[in-house]
């Protein structure tokens, strides 16, 4: 059991900034995120795109913003459960919450802050009629353990970075790798595209473009796929393989949070914006893009503000009746949980003679 003061669901910009604000109040945070890395949409969808409306940053790349937020909060030693999706929540008699992930990891906290953005990122499944019959029977949307592909024949579909990168990686261990994409152009890092070109020239990756997989062949397990050559012709052929890995990116879905008994309106969680961004469940807050209230704007900068006020409310829940006065970081400095201290340099007072 992981225990913490504030359990934050979602490690995007809002969740990361909440760690900093909570730290100023001496509250410890742990974050759960379905993605294997922090940053949320900023790292999953647009890490190399600039953002122009972060106060104080005329221009910053989304990936850089994530790095900065992590640097800013790291002295407060946040814990992370990455690559797992928050599945259930229960309230204990002592008032704490237990949140369990899809992998069974349990987290206990007095306050839960949902900073889930548009939801947890789930793989986009291609609309192939019989694909669901083969899930985990040779069809995998996410590569968890590359070893299962050793000496197997693999078909990968997709045209982005993950399709390219996994084709490169699996070409070293699989007996055969075929990469199928609807057109000849790939969108990915230039060196990945060049590497796949090189592997294709050497005959180590079998490239089939423009083409798409239209159905899956097999009895209980994948034994092959049917491929349609180009979009214009109806010409199809079968390709034998042991695994079919469609890599078409991820799309966010609100997911299990929708069943937590929260007031939900238009795929967002209703909160009290006049006070503290608390949901209809006392002790459960929703901050950032995942919440809604009259006049809501889905902006990172609004998420920062919401995170800050949420932490104040969390402080009052965790320290009932305790007096509190707002401190400015410039005045008080920052005492990290790791023993570090940041503070403004003392003014130099020296006589001029």
């Amino acid at each position, binding site marked *: 059991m992981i225990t913490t003061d504030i359990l934050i669901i979602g490690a995007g910009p809002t969740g990361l900034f909440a760690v900093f604000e909570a730290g100023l109040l001496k509250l410890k945070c742990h974050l759960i995120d379905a993605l294997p890395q922090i940053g949320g949409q900023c790292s999953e969808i*647009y890490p190399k795109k600039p953002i122009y409306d972060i106060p104080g940053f005329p221009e910053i790349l989304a990936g850089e913003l994530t790095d900065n937020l992590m640097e800013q909060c790291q002295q407060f030693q946040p814990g992370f459960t990455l690559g797992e999706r928050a599945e259930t929540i229960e309230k204990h008699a002592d008032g704490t919450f237990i949140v369990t992930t899809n992998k069974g990891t349990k987290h206990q906290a007095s306050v839960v802050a949902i900073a889930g953005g548009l939801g947890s990122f789930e793989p*986009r499944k291609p609309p192939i009629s019989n694909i669901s019959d083969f899930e985990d029977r040779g069809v995998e949307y996410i590569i968890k353990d590359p070893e299962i592909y050793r000496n197997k024949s693999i078909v990968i579909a997709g045209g982005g970075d993950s399709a390219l990168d996994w084709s490169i990686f699996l070409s070293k261990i699989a007996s055969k790798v075929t990469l199928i994409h609807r057109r000849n152009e790939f969108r990915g890092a230039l060196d990945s595209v060049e590497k796949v070109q090189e592997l294709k020239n050497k005959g180590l990756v079998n490239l089939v473009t423009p083409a798409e997989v239209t159905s899956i062949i097999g009895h209980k397990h994948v034994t092959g796929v049917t491929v349609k050559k180009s979009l214009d012709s109806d010409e199809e052929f079968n390709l034998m393989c042991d695994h079919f890995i469609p890599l078409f990116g991820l799309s966010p879905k609100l997911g299990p949070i929708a069943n937590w008994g929260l007031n939900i309106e238009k795929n967002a969680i209703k909160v009290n914006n006049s006070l503290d961004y608390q949901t209809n469940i006392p002790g459960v807050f929703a901050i950032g893009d995942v919440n809604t209230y009259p006049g809501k704007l889905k902006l990172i900068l609004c998420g920062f503000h919401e995170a800050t006020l949420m932490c104040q409310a969390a402080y009052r829940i965790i320290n009932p009746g305790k007096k509190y006065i707002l401190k400015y970081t410039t005045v008080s400095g920052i005492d990290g949980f790791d023993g570090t201290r940041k503070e403004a340099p003392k003014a130099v007072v020296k006589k001029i003679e």
Partner: protein
Amino acid sequence: MDQDIKITVIDRNGVSHVIDAPIDMAMNLMEVIRTYELATEGTIGTCGGMAMCASCQCYILSNHRLPEKQDDEEAMLSEAFYVKENSRLGCQIQINPEIEGLKIEIAPES
């Protein structure tokens, strides 16, 4: 209302809506659809309009000449599902007087 053009949008339930789209707000088709809430919030415009998610894919049903697809739209559509000859990303289509009378259908959610 000379700042508006008429657009027909068929939503994901097959219902047709004729809406007024402003030409003076630098809006794109995805944003207009969201403004009128013709697709459930959270199922359209996921990436905010960067041609990086295809949640605003539409089928163009009228014969308007639209600006050519840029590379990023072309690339995204090549990875999207339910793509047809007349597929476009709504976020890449600017509202301007040339598309008066445009008729589109929102592609299924994927």
